[in-house]
């Protein structure tokens, strides 16, 4: 079965002469607005759901009325409404599973509506591996309460005590007389459920799960393999939309001094809009708008900070505040007294781009005083507030709809493009399409911040770590604290985490990048642990075991070692084996890698990676494995090649020709193992496997050739330099 949007299938010859846009009738438009997933409108007016929303603006929390999260149609289909978005991480599938579990309906009967600020309950955004661990309990609680109310209603309808009722697949039956049944649909007849419970019923215990813990296939598969999946840039509002290309400065902090748009305006159909500092070129066709923008002649006064990608590290250390102590114990002087060998080391990590293949995109339509914005965003509700403020519109006049998002990784928590589209749509009264060029994407990305980590640590004669003095600059606290048994230790985070606020030491915007800060921190910590193991002449896995008592960490370490076939040998063993551990979003991870290093070229080939992960209860095992594989593959980029080059406020990498993402030929065999942990609540899944990638590769390189790398990415040039030092 193939989803059919009814277009391009009739008639034998498709003839489009001149500038024409496809007609979209009202019915199709409604389908498009919710990425074709919405069946709700056909059976229930949306207003029924609107009532359940809390007032917009200001501080918000999740609504307490379960009707905000679910609606049972008269046809028995269940609509699950969530403010989360689908950007590839699989929340569309796993959240549907959670609802189906606690409501006791088949997953196939659930339709998802995500990230629509008019229809869905408020949500702060899709980031931080929070959809399952933080929002999951809210959704499950709503489903459990709805189920309990439905059981009460069934009890009254069937005249059977509630304790004699059982539910399966949305059908309530009398356990003493299975022929006596009533369905959820019969009970609700498409109406919202007005009854609520004083005491919230418990969610299902793990042992009763039938849906959670199963690898339900992805809901988005069919649409994504047929090209039917709609992303923000694909949305066509009635009457079509004009592409907008916006004039950009050559560098951050530059201001425009002169502009001449006359040549651009000579192109037929082009309209130039100027509003304050914004100059936009509009045209029905993107490539014509591109051409017109290239004809705009502008001059800028630059105001570049005196830093570049080489001097930035000194700059960060010099400008950082004294920092905040994240963790400490014992006394550092006592540690200094106990050490037999001290290692002082500095680790460097550069700026990284999010580089989703879908650039920031949005379509905005302004009609009757209300702006509707289809945006590729991780944060539809905060974006709505941003648009309200930018355009001075009341809450009811701004709607953000989030179709499929073509990758986010933290980069689409910032949604400047959507504000631009909304602004231009209200200015011109025309629907506007803003799809950033790859150059704009690299310029306005909220880069993962460059960072410096300084560690002074040491072991005693028994090869126990007795001193750990750790200071991170500009990566932030996530992943900074260690989990080893170290009697005398201190962890300090200085310079913030690059999330904005206060004086930024960075020459451009920085922000959250998949497990923000953790990749810089784990690279430094797990490299330092390996350096100490090598100094002690102890196998790096044994050295970790010797200095750990955390049972969950020891378990993932043992699980990874078994899967990998690790045999103890002190590094450098020549085998090219590496190990690294981390805790992120409540999830414990151990990774092991095997690499080959070409000494003449400095090229590193990662041959295989094993990952053992304890993430508590797993909602969708195959979905979790997809995330682990994705983390490891994406992680190879920051580890081996990705680096944002810049001079002052000018970003020098503008496309994938110089900013190198991992490719097929790089990808190792990845074996991921989920550790069974049913007694631990579901923890994060989208990020935890990415932070250890840098360290596991660095440690494997050292094991292969005895050269230690302290600076990511570990480009062939840096590998050769490290080899020359040995």
């Amino acid at each position, binding site marked *: *079965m*193939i989803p059919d949007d009814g277009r*391009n299938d009739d008639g*034998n*010859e*498709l*003839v*489009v*002469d*001149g*500038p*024409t*846009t*496809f007609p979209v009738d009202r019915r199709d438009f409604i389908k498009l607005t919710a990425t074709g997933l919405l069946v709700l409108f056909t059976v229930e007016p949306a207003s029924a759901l609107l009532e359940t929303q809390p007032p917009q603006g200001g501080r918000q929390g999740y609504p307490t009325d379960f009707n905000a999260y679910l609606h049972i149609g008269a046809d028995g289909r269940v609509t699950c409404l969530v403010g989360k978005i689908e*950007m*590839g991480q699989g929340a569309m599938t796993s959240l549907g599973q959670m609802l189906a579990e606690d409501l006791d309906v088949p997953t196939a009967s659930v339709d998802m509506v995500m990230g629509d600020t008019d229809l869905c309950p408020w949500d702060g955004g899709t980031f931080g591996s929070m959809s399952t661990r933080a929002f999951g309990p809210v959704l499950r609680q709503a489903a459990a309460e709805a189920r309990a109310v439905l059981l009460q209603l069934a009890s009254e309808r069937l005249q059977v005590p509630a304790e004699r009722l059982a539910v399966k697949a949305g059908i309530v039956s009398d356990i003493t007389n299975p022929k006596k049944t009533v369905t959820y649909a019969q009970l609700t007849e498409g109406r919202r459920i007005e009854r609520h419970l004083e005491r919230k019923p418990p969610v299902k215990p793990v042992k009763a799960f039938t849906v959670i813990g199963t690898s339900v*296939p*992805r809901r*988005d*598969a*069919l649409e*994504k*393999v*047929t*090209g*039917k*999946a*709609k992303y923000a*840039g*694909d949305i*066509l509002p009635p009457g079509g939309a004009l*592409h907008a290309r916006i004039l950009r400065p050559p560098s951050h902090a530059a201001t425009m001094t002169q502009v001449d748009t006359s040549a651009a305006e000579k192109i037929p159909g082009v309209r130039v809009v100027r509003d304050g500092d914004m100059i936009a070129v509009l045209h029905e*066709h*993107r*490539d*014509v708008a591109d051409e017109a923008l290239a004809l705009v002649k502008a001059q800028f006064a630059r105001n570049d900070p005196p830093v570049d990608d080489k001097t930035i590290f000194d700059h960060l250390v010099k400008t950082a505040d004294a920092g905040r102590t994240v963790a400490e114990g014992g006394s550092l002087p006592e540690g200094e007294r106990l050490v037999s060998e001290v290692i002082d080391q500095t680790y460097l990590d550069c700026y990284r781009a999010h580089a*989703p*293949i*879908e*650039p920031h995109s949005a379509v905005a339509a302004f009609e009757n005083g209300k702006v509707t914005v289809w945006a590729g965003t991780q944060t539809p509700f905060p974006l709505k507030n941003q648009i309200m403020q930018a355009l001075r519109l009341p809450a009811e006049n701004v709607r953000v709809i989030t179709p*499929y998002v*073509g*990758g986010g990784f933290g980069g689409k928590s910032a949604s400047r493009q959507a504000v631009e589209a909304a602004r231009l749509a209200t200015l011109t009264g025309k629907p506007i399409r803003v*799809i950033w060029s*790859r150059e704009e994407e690299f310029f306005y990305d909220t880069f993962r911040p460059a960072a410096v980590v300084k560690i002074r640590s040491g072991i005693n004669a028994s090869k126990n770590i007795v001193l750990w003095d750790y200071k991170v600059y500009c990566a932030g606290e996530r992943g900074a604290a260690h989990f080893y048994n170290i009697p005398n230790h201190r962890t300090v985070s200085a310079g913030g985490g690059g999330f904005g606020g206060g004086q930024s030491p960075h020459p451009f915007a920085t922000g959250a990048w998949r497990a923000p800060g953790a990749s810089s921190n784990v690279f430094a910590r797990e490299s330092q642990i390996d350096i100490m193991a090598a100094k002690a002449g102890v196998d790096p896995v044994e050295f970790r075991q010797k200095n750990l008592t955390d049972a969950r960490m020891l378990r993932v370490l043992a699980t990874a070692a078994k899967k990998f076939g690790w045999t103890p040998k002190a590094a450098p063993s020549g085998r090219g084996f590496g190990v690294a551990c981390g805790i992120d979003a409540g999830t414990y991870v151990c990774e092991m890698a095997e690499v080959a290093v070409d000494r003449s070229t400095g090229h590193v080939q990662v041959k295989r990676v094993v990952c053992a992960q304890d993430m508590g209860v797993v909602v969708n095992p*195959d979905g979790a494995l*997809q995330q682990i*594989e*994705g983390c*490891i*593959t*994406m992680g190879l980029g920051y580890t081996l090649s990705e680096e944002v080059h810049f001079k002052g406020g000018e970003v020098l990498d503008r*496309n*994938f*020709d110089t900013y190198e*993402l*991992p*490719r*097929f030929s790089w*990808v190792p065999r990845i074996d991921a193992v989920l550790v069974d942990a049913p007694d631990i609540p579901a923890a994060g899944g989208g990020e935890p496997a990415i932070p250890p990638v840098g360290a596991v590769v660095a440690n494997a390189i050292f094991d292969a050739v005895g050269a230690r790398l302290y600076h990511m990415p570990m480009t062939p040039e840096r590998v050769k330099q490290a080899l020359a030092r040995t």
Partner: protein
Amino acid sequence: MRPVSFTLNGKPTRVTVDEKRVLLWVLRDQLGLTGTKFGCGQAVCGACTVLVDNEAVRSCITSIGDVQGKQVLTIEGLARDGRLHPIQDAFVTHAAFQCGYCTPGMILGAYAMLLKNPKARRADILKEMDGHLCRCGAHQRIVQAVETAAAAMKGSAR
């Protein structure tokens, strides 16, 4: 402006546009086929891949004039008679995608490769697909899906 005539997903098609217009944007903006994605604009990511006379081309740097008289296949035309192509089937089975944005280009890139080399092995797949970028890191599953599809097709591309 002269009409450009070509076959699009099996249907005779004519558009009257400047022949220098970019194929990607004519497909998306005028023919309503949004399955072909814009990723980089410089033919370095593969998201806009379509087939022209059975060759994979990057539609973001292809002029509409260049497809005059030719057969153009986009992702919308790969499934036929309500049935997914074996490559699409394999992508579903292996969950060989995450965000899905590079997927149409990936599938068409793999299709063009298998048309030329129906017995493509892993090394061929890695080499041929290396110019396609996926940021989510679905690579391992994509390779498995293409292998599965190649086996299912038993040497015939359809």
